[in-house]
């Protein structure tokens, strides 16, 4: 299974896929000291972003969210890669500052091709997502 994706920030990452069907608010919705989603009633409340490959349709809330992502990267508790459903300058800017690879993909294809929690390879150099052999 190889899924072609658009590259936003180049890089390469391998990790467990964490799929959020709902948008995430990084400022206020994620604990900057642990990388855990803390937004009340979010479907992923309590889940950790640390070293996961996060698939999220887009982000919501304050533009300061970029700084939260950058801070997670500096503490080495950030997602190792991000798959976005559409352009999102808040997530992209934070990921670029933090050196996290980012791609754009069709979220429906992600949901139909991969299972939440499975290990995937995000190849944001060639623009593809694949399963390790």
């Amino acid at each position, binding site marked *: 299974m190889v899924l072609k994706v*658009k590259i*936003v*920030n180049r890089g390469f990452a391998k990790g467990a896929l964490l799929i959020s069907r709902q948008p995430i608010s990084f*400022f206020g919705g994620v604990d*900057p000291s642990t990388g855990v989603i803390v937004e009340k009633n979010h479907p992923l409340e309590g889940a950790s972003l640390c070293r996961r490959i996060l698939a999220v349709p887009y982000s919501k809330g*304050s*533009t*300061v969210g*970029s*700084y*939260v992502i*950058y*801070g*997670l990267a*500096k503490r080495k508790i950030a997602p190792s890669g991000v798959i976005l459903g559409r*352009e999102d*300058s*808040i997530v*992209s*800017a*934070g990921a*670029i*500052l933090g050196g996290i690879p*980012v791609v*754009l993909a069709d979220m429906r294809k992600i949901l139909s091709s991969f299972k939440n929690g499975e290990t995937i390879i995000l190849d944001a150099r060639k623009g593809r997502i694949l399963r390790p052999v």
Partner: protein
Amino acid sequence: MFKKILESTQTGRKKYVKISSAHLSGISYLNIGDAGLEFLEDLGRSGLRFRVRTTINPGCVDFDRVFECDPEVVEKQERIVRSLKNIGAKESLTCTPYLFDNPLRKNQKIAWAESSAVLYANSIIGASTNKEGSLTALASAILGYTTRTGIHLRNGRKPRIFFEYDGELKNELDYGLLGYVMGLKAGAEIPYLRLKKNSGNIFYYKQLLAGFGTSGAAPMVWIENLTPGFLRVKKPLRKIVLDRSELEKERRNLSEEAPSSRDEKLVFITGCPHMSLEEIKGFQEALESVNRLSVEAWVFTSRSTYSEAFRKSLLTELFEKGVRVFKDSCVMHCSLKKGRVHVLTNSVKAAYYLRGALKLKTTLKSLNEFIEEYGGK
């Protein structure tokens, strides 16, 4: 890295436009936290410099009243400002940079964050800026250009929705509420506004635009008889007539019943966006017939306006009435963070964010309503 940030906001062919001015948001330590502080300090050490005149939004501390805030917050806010100065920012600490610190001309292409300033720059002065995010504005300030999208495109200023309001607008609060209602209805579309009874001064429109920037996503409003070039613009066909009841509804949505000042601490807050010299003068004149106020009143303004007002001896009279004048900071002030206060304000934007981010209770009151209710003869 900064080029990539701008690239990440557009798909397809990347296009850019040169800018001659930038204004940054994401300055307050209460907003950006330790992560933002670390990033700006790293950037300050990197040796990069802003290529265009760059001003900055308020922080959360008035540096002449540091005792009102947690010392750790003061120290970190200082470090944020110092880093930005090292990169070349003017220490403006205001959301109204168009008044003194970063003056604009018509048709000037700029990259500004801070929605109320973006709306003012485009709609009142006739400059061109999108609603930049904290980091795209920062990237543009360093690069000297921004993405050629939105308002910078050929049809990017075109209004798509026509609003008409024929009711009365009594004061600055009514204008703010009208802007807020327009933003709710316009979404991302640029509106054209016709007021049947057109009486407001420019600072009423400042409130209208701040309200609009709070609820809407568009970077400008065409205001009939005010926005440069309004005669030549093609009026949109889609027309919505607004009425007073919609303003009243949003006023109720952003207001609780004000408690008695014996039961709870009440504070009247004005200066969101920062008060201009003329507005300070207006407040001072409105207070002339009043001996004292029964609740605290706080005014927020920029450093530059503060020193101008001080020189014109407008402030001493405010001080005599017990009004506290803050600069460098805004209504999202360090001392309100944990404070148990009920806020009265004439700013729709302030009420919206004080409720949302600081979870405070608010009541909307115009300046004159406030003075009538709480001013003792």
